[in-house]
């Protein structure tokens, strides 16, 4: 690591993170005393049922929510507002329908007042990476759901962020598109060695993509297990049929079957 980068650029660290939502019908404890660490270049997945607070955790990392207590640090600095060095993708493509595909991809540069010519050149590169260079001038609703999600991924990568926050980005897609995008994400991740905080409720997706899977328990959300996946990279669709893969899935599934404690 060079002297210029702060201690562990792209790392994410949560310490004693709790969050209580106040609603009309009383307080809801979304997170309780969550500790987690994502190292530089590490792909970490938060796996859990819906309502376990994994999206809340991601929103805190994105600077969209402030924790009730505890601290979230990215690259060693406490998160107080959305940071310019992260990329984010959501379950929905969340594209602006009145902007072209390219204009959507360069939005993260526009909001920071960066050089737009350079941003557009970079945006075209990323669209090419996603196989969408021909659609730069189209509007989002002229694209299929899978293509829109790819545009969202290109937008996430625009600022060349050190840390990616991904909230169930493939869950609204059909199985075939999902597999293709999983492979693409792995390819991009292996090429650029970014840190990733990935959220899903799909066990197979978690095992396929991750270095580590953090299993979350529901309400209040806590980390129930920190499970390392040691499958060799790059993983292919064949990986999913190997005993080690199946075994890892079976192990993780234990958390979600049987009588609830």
């Amino acid at each position, binding site marked *: 690591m060079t002297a210029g980068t702060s201690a562990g650029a792209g790392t994410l660290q949560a310490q004693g993170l709790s969050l209580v939502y106040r609603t009309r019908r009383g307080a809801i404890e979304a997170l309780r005393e969550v500790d987690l660490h994502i190292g530089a270049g590490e792909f970490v997945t938060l796996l859990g049922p819906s309502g376990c607070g994994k999206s809340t955790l991601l929103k805190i990392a994105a600077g*969209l929510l402030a924790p009730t207590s505890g601290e979230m640090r990215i690259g060693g600095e406490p998160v107080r507002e959305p940071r310019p060095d992260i990329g984010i993708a959501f379950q929905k493509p969340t594209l602006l329908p009145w902007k072209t595909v390219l204009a959507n991809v360069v939005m993260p540069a526009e909001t920071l007042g960066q050089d737009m010519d350079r941003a557009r050149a970079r945006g075209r590169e990323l669209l090419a990476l996603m196989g969408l260079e021909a659609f730069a001038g189209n509007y989002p*609703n002229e694209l299929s759901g899978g293509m829109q999600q790819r545009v969202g991924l290109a937008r996430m990568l625009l600022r060349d962020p050190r840390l990616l926050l991904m909230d169930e980005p493939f869950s609204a897609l059909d199985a075939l598109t999902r597999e293709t995008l999983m492979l693409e994400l792995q390819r991009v991740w292996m090429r650029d060695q970014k840190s990733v905080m990935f959220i899903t409720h799909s066990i197979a997706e978690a095992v396929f993509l991750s270095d580590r899977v953090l299993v979350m328990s529901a309400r209040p959300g806590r980390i129930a297990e920190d499970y390392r996946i040691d499958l060799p990279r790059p993983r292919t669709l064949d990986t999913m049929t190997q005993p080690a893969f199946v075994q890892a899935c079976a192990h993780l599934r234990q958390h979600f079957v049987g009588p609830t404690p």
Partner: protein
Amino acid sequence: MKRLLDLIYPAITLAVVLAAWHYAVILLDMPDYVLPDPLAVWRALVAGFQDGTLWRHIGYTLYATLAGYAIGSVLALGLGALLAESRTFEKFVYPVLVAIQATPKVALAPLILVWFGFGIASKVVLVVLICFFPLFVNTIVGIRRVDPDLIDACKAFSASRWYLFRHVKLPAAAGDIFAGLQIGISLALIGTVVGELVSSEAGLGYLIGSSAVNMNVSTMFAAVALLAVIGIAGTEAVRLLHRRVVFWEAERAERTRTTQA
């Protein structure tokens, strides 16, 4: 071309109604002061255009309608946007405006005439009042109902408050804003005519009122026909603009049209 062909069907209906009207007047021997022959209405129109009186009335009505519509719409958009963005402003102003909205503005016509005189200013004021509220309410509703995920996505990429307003909320509300503009244009014409009927020096509403005194029913019909043409032209113009500007919601623009009709 297809749209032009579609016009043939209502044109046939209109021709049948006019023919039935013409022969009913002849067969039933209707006196002119109850129901004039459509040909008499046509002659009144031609005569009015030839001696220039109709042009003056049309100009007066158009001016009052368009000036009032423009002022009312600008006020409604500005105040609506301000109210949607500022909770403080909302607390002070919204209840008052709701109270005003509940009163039929037409009932204020005599008062406005007393205050602003019998000239064109009183008609403009009446139109401003009458077309303000639909657009005002639609602007607020439109801005408030922007997809919160879209807002979060842009915020996570460091979008400023101004960026969110200009590039996210305002375009997202455009469909509702145009629906308000469409209601506004038909209400604006009603406002002008009511003002002119109550008291005026010119205008198509004034022409209807003064022709009634003289039992000149042909001229009354001529003025009504002209108002219909102005009304149709106005709503069509706004609808066209709607489809052009809010191109990403083309289907929705069509739907507001049918609910208006």
